[in-house]
């Protein structure tokens, strides 16, 4: 071979599964299908699920999780994790309350709370990306730290007198529809994150880091800065979710949103993101969040206790990660069917280059 002669193009169709297969046989499609199935089943069988209020309450309930799942997906794809999101929600909630009580208008206080969220994310990101500490340990620490500051600032008391106008905004719907207003910022963010992750150079870097951060570094991806940015995004979006949470319930408390981090992570993993990083797509994650939301909504309507809902969510989570492996193991046990005929590579003796590599066709 020489660098100037063009090699004849070969196709190895056996390698790339047909397009429809690649699109359909994915984790994401499975989650979406399951979500759709649960929705259809609930509409048909769960009393009042088809009622007019369901969609509004459902979306209001899952809004904070939807929001935080966006940056969390990216964080987990880089192979890190952020356990401090719910504590940042709590902290931004308390800050909003304390500042508002101190005489600041809601938008000004919210802005400061967002900045605080950004700062929290920056602290996480700095320790993880630049000091090189494991994110699991760091965010377990900041989980306690941020929540501790929130509770420390406000004790266990609550601040509840928010300007009516703003709480109405948080609970209001778009025009005559039943879609909550919060879906507008969510939609904007969702589009932004989809573009960022799937259609930008930054997003390619995110996947590369998750698969092999050393190689990404050698390729000129700024690993540390990417991680810092992601944790800051995670912080600021969590703060936004905290503000929404506060205004929706009209109550700023230090213990707001306790335990949400595990819900977010469960939803993200259910949506097909690999905890090892490098794999996962946003539409699967959003379907995962909706799936959990629909399940809890339907089960509540059936007056099933939250315990059973938790059991089902837990089982789904375990099954969703176990099943692909079990299926893979099972299919490898089955006698291998002859693979579709691939163009068999001829070992022309005069072509050293082609002789060096195994043919990947079937041996039938």
């Amino acid at each position, binding site marked *: 071979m020489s660098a100037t002669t063009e090699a004849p193009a070969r196709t190895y169709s056996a390698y790339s599964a047909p397009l429809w297969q690649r699109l359909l046989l994915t984790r994401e499609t499975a989650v979406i299908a399951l979500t759709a199935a649960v929705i259809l089943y609930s509409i048909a069988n769960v009393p009042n699920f088809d009622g007019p*209020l369901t969609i509004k309450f459902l979306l209001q309930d899952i809004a904070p999780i939807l929001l935080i799942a966006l940056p969390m997906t990216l964080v987990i794809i880089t192979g890190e994790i952020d356990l401090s999101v719910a504590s940042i929600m709590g902290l931004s909630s308390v800050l909003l309350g304390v500042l508002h009580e101190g005489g600041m208008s809601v938008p000004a206080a919210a802005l400061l709370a967002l900045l605080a969220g950004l700062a929290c994310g920056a602290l996480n990101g700095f320790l993880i990306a630049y000091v090189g500490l494991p994110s699991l340990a760091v965010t377990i620490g900041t989980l306690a730290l941020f929540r501790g500051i929130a509770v420390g600032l406000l004790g266990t008391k609550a601040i509840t007198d928010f300007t009516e106008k703003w709480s109405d905004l948080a609970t209001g719907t778009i025009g005559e529809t039943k879609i909550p207003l919060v879906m507008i910022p969510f939609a904007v963010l969702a589009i932004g994150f989809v573009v960022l992750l799937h259609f930008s150079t930054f997003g390619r870097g995110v996947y590369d880091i998750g698969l092999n951060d050393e190689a990404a570094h050698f390729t000129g991806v700024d690993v540390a800065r990417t991680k810092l940015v992601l944790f800051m995004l995670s912080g600021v979006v969590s703060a936004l979710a905290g503000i929404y949470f506060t205004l929706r319930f009209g109550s700023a408390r230090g213990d707001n949103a306790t335990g949400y981090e595990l819900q977010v992570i469960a939803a993200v993993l259910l949506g097909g993101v690999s905890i090892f990083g490098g794999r996962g797509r946003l539409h699967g994650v959003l379907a995962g969040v909706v799936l959990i939301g629909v399940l809890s909504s339907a089960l509540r309507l059936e007056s099933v206790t939250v315990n059973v809902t938790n059991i089902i969510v837990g089982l789904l989570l375990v099954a969703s990660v176990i099943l692909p492996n079990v299926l893979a193991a099972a299919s490898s046990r089955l006698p291998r069917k002859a693979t579709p005929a691939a163009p068999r590579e001829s070992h022309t003796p005069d072509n050293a280059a082609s002789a060096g590599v195994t043919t990947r066709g079937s041996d039938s």
Partner: protein
Amino acid sequence: GCGGDDGGDSGSDSGSGGDGGGALSMTMLPKNLGNAYFDTSTKGAMTAADELGADMEEVGPETGSPDAQVSYINTVAQQGKDALIISANDPDALCDAIEEARSADVKVVTFDADTNPECRDLFINQATSEGIAAKQLELIAEEIGGSGEIAILSASANATNQNAWIATMEEELASNPDYADIELVDTVYGDDEDQKSFDQTEALLQNHPDLKGIISPTTVGIAAAARYLSDSEYKGQVALTGLGTPNQMREFVEDGTVASFALWNPGDLGYLATYAAAALVDGSITGEEGDSFEAGELGEFEVGADGTVLLGEPFTFNADNIGDFDF
């Protein structure tokens, strides 16, 4: 992909589903499940519902947080139930959700812990703040001989009812000459969790070596504090009183850790709330001051100011009478 068969159908066992046409349907939503106090009130509510021929189900969150309660209030609105009986985890946070439910024609009765008066139809008050505060001060003053340091072990810092009682107690301590020698040195919060209340008791005793008495106006708190005291060096030295249930406190009253404590009958509270809700639904009352209704074996009640119905005076339990109760 995989089939979508799990999940949705596993929940059809317990719920009564929708409201079957004419029958009165109600939901009981305590602060949290798995709490003996609320179990008793739910039992009372169920009894009343049976008498009324109404459908009654109990739902609730695992932990006493307002946001978890909101989902259940929303569900009640979706189901279009006739009435919701609720003990509120936060006076303000639930208002929007309750209003939404009321606009879906659900009557809302609060009991045990109120929301802002505007957002609900009626509040069933177990006892007046004054009555409760006075009772507990009276008990503690008696036990510590009218002088010394005391402390309060409360539930969470924004439990409405607790805070109202504490405020009243503070006023009373400051103004009542009988309590001139009693000093309230600390108020701590056990968040209605056993372990936290237990640890808080320890911290109180450690930080205030001269402490003579503890008031714990919450059933979880007083039981945890009693457990701590009963095998510590402070047993018999530090007096404990507050609000507790006889079953939880029996052991400590019998072994002398606690001399007396107070409470109303939570069963009666649930029973009364159910009758009040039924009266609201059938339109015989609207929640105006002065309305009156019949509450089965408890007799007749009248709605007071701010849409409040008062159950009665708290009852004092001590070694002499505790054997008569089982809740």
